[in-house]
């Protein structure tokens, strides 16, 4: 039965190739060639004409001139065409009843190169993320090997080495490589018919961080507006205990006793992110929590800051037009470092007419009341600094 159908098939092939043309006859019996082998299509002819042969392969078409030997016309395909895998269809350009047919060029089953495409090049640890290795073994003429050719993919992570066999389908072979639980590098390569590819690397990066702790460090607990409190995280890790990548951005949210939010931030180095914040300049309590946005958060820590200044003097001079506030003294009685903010309000008949802000210099903040701005009259002056408010009623200018 099989034999019979084979006969039928060849009968039809013959019909197809030998359409009715009395002058020319296609005499090449071979219809499959291996890439790179010389392909010569032959026709026997009774006439003296030597028609051109039109050939068209995967990449283009051209015409071939015959080599005539007595009654046989030989058309030799140029190597550029004979070496490309795929169908070559041809037509003999006779005046009437053009013969046409097709031959098949198969890729050479030996590997000259394995084109490897590996991506994405870095994946997250944890077994859910993956990368894909696409290997296209090609022959010496750059044709992808035939489908069903076996390709071995080898990949190694730490001490473990895995070999998988995949097959070429649609000209390519591919293998999905899932990430291990630990960070590191997966080295991979492929081999086909005794040819080995180069080494390719996948970086296994830590997965998303999980919740972490924060701690703080400060020199004293006074709200001097000068010293710095340092916040730091514990080593931030993913769910499998891999330290997160350097540069992971951690944002610290500080909520003050007045429910204002102050932010500071840092990026991790070896899993630890450090961020700094200047002490407040008046008694305050901070509640701090850190976030890695969208992924993880820390515990909440509470900090108290004590006031450094319990009292200060206001001295008026020059017809009350010069006001000196100070000396501003810190917790040990020392002059407070420069830069403490002092705010100065001037009221006239219960109406605020001027506000000035100055930073302390050598323990003092000095204000001047200009006669152009403040004509003679009765004023109330209020001074605020370090959370303390003092007022002077009925200041006569």
């Amino acid at each position, binding site marked *: 039965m099989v034999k019979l159908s084979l006969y039928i098939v060849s009968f039809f092939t013959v019909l197809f190739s030998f359409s009715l043309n009395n002058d020319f006859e296609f005499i090449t019996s071979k219809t499959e060639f291996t890439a790179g082998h010389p392909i010569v299509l032959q026709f026997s002819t009774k006439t003296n004409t030597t028609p051109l042969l039109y050939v068209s392969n*995967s990449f283009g078409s051209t015409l071939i001139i015959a080599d005539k030997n007595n009654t046989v016309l030989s058309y030799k395909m*140029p190597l550029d065409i004979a070496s490309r895998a795929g169908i070559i269809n041809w037509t003999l350009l006779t005046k009437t009843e053009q013969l*046409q047919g*097709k031959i098949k060029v198969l890729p050479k089953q030996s590997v000259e190169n394995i084109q490897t495409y590996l991506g994405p090049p870095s994946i997250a640890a944890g077994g859910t993320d993956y990368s*894909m290795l*696409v290997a296209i073994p090609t022959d010496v003429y750059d044709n992808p090997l035939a489908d069903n050719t076996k390709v071995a993919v080898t990949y190694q992570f730490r001490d473990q080495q895995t070999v998988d066999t995949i097959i070429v389908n649609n*000209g390519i072979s591919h293998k999905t490589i899932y990430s291990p639980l630990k960070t590191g590098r997966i080295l991979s390569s492929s081999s086909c018919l005794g040819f080995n590819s180069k080494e390719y690397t996948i970086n296994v990066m830590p997965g998303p961080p999980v919740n972490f702790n924060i701690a703080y460090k400060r020199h004293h607990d006074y709200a001097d507006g000068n010293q710095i409190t340092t916040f730091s995280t514990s080593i931030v890790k993913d769910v499998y205990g891999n330290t997160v990548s350097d540069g992971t951005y951690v944002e610290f949210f500080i909520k003050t006793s007045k429910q204002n939010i102050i932010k500071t931030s840092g990026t991790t180095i070896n899993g630890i992110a450090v961020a700094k914040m200047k002490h407040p300049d008046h008694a305050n309590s901070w509640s701090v929590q850190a976030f890695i946005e969208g992924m993880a958060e820390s515990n909440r820590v509470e900090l108290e800051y004590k006031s450094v200044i319990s009292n200060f003097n206001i001295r008026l001079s020059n017809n009350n037009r010069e006001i000196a506030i100070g000396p501003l003294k810190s917790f040990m009685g020392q002059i407070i470092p420069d830069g403490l903010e002092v705010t100065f309000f001037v009221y006239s008949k219960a109406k605020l007419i001027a506000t000035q802000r100055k930073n302390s210099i050598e323990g003092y903040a000095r204000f001047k009341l200009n006669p152009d701005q403040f004509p003679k009259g009765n004023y109330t002056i209020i001074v605020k600094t370090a959370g303390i408010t003092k007022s002077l009623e009925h200041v006569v200018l």
Partner: protein
Amino acid sequence: MTRINRNILRGVLVLSYIIIIAVVVLGVGRIFSYLNTGADRSTMLHTEIKKIDQYLPKLEWAPLKNEGRLMDVETLKSIEADYLDAWYVKHVAYKTNTTQGVDDYYTESARKSIYDILDKNKAEGIWIDGTTLEHHITLEFFSEDGKLAVIRDRDVLEYKRVYQNEDMLFETKEISTYKAIVLLEDGFWRIRHLIKENNTPYKSEFSSVSNSISNVKGINYYPQATPWDMYGDYFDAQVISKDFKIIKDAGLNSIRIFVPYKDFGKANIKTEKLEKLKTVLDMAQNNQLKVVVTLFDFYGDYEVLNWTLNQHHAIKIVTSLKNHKALLAWDIKNEPNLDFESRGKIKVMAWLEHMIAVVKSSDSKHPVTIGWSNAESAGLLNEAVDVVSFHYYEHLKGLEHAYSTLKENNPDKTIVLTEYGLSSNKGVWNLLGNSEEDQANYHKEAQALFAKNNIQSLSWTLYDFSKIPKEVVGRLPWRKQTQGCFGFINQNGETKPAFKYMSREIN
């Protein structure tokens, strides 16, 4: 003697003076009118999109069932665009034997395969004018990193004309299946491997359509005010409706109208134009008139590389009108045989044959014809068309013979005379032209011939026109005047004597 000479000299001087002044005035006038044509203000913002369609073969994606990563629409579109561009640059490369653009769409190793064949072709003077007309693409594989895809392009319909130096040696239509491995490089989806997996010769087969036409008595129609510009700014449905009523009342049952290719937006059909065309068909329907729609009016390029644009245009129009009750038939092109000389018969014929296939593949109901300009050409492509149609402007005494010869040669086909008429062009430019009475006699005689031989016909045309675009008959005033006087109704809206013979039934 001297006096005469002096007078001649004087005359020549005066005459040349007048000519110089005329030229100067004309030149200044031209410059002045040029300076008055201002730029469109919207161009100041450079907001217009520069993309032009140059290659639009029919393309279908099979439902996505690929291996690997899930495909998204944006990537699919960009693969499609680059894949088609790759075909386009390849066609251009093989036509011109240059490599421009090839490196953008083929990787370094793949382009070598093209360059090798190009070098051979260039050396031997071989060049190939080709295009692909249909693609049916399946996405087989898309890599996880989104940078490699395998597509299989089934039943690619390719058309090629192979030339050696100036001689066309071979024309072929092939159906091939290709597999392409494409890589995303520098923002381009480049072809890395291309493998022809199958190939069969294409055999044009034109199946006949379900509708037939009979008893056509009609007229070619353009509105009086806007001939050859029917769908422009002055489109007036009421005027058209009124005209259709005149045609209906004159005892006719069909009209033939024209769809200008460029005016309708070439490949990107302008919706408003298409709506106007539909309105025309609606009006015809209201007046119980059937419509022969003539495509590709004012198109004369036929370049193989533009076929995809042409077919895109045709498919859009055909699919949007094919279910309209007023539609009678498709006329692929008006008088294409007049382009044989300037464009080459092979080019025009191949184009026509393909466009017939395109229209038929979109509409299997309505007959297709080509409005040949004379009876001699009407036998061309008679296997492909459903209705053989021709135009006849010669002396009526030859009509009977021409018709019967056609009938004899095309026994299975309906034959329709889609244009005939006589211009009552007697006037300043045509002193020896025909008078309105001559025209009336012509139509009377024609109607008698039609009745005798049972000829289906559409006359040219309802109105006399005053504005004839130069694309129709050129710039010469006597030609324009002739073209303007074919109507049954003159420029003042009065019926001419021939009006009585618009159809047999009018009396």
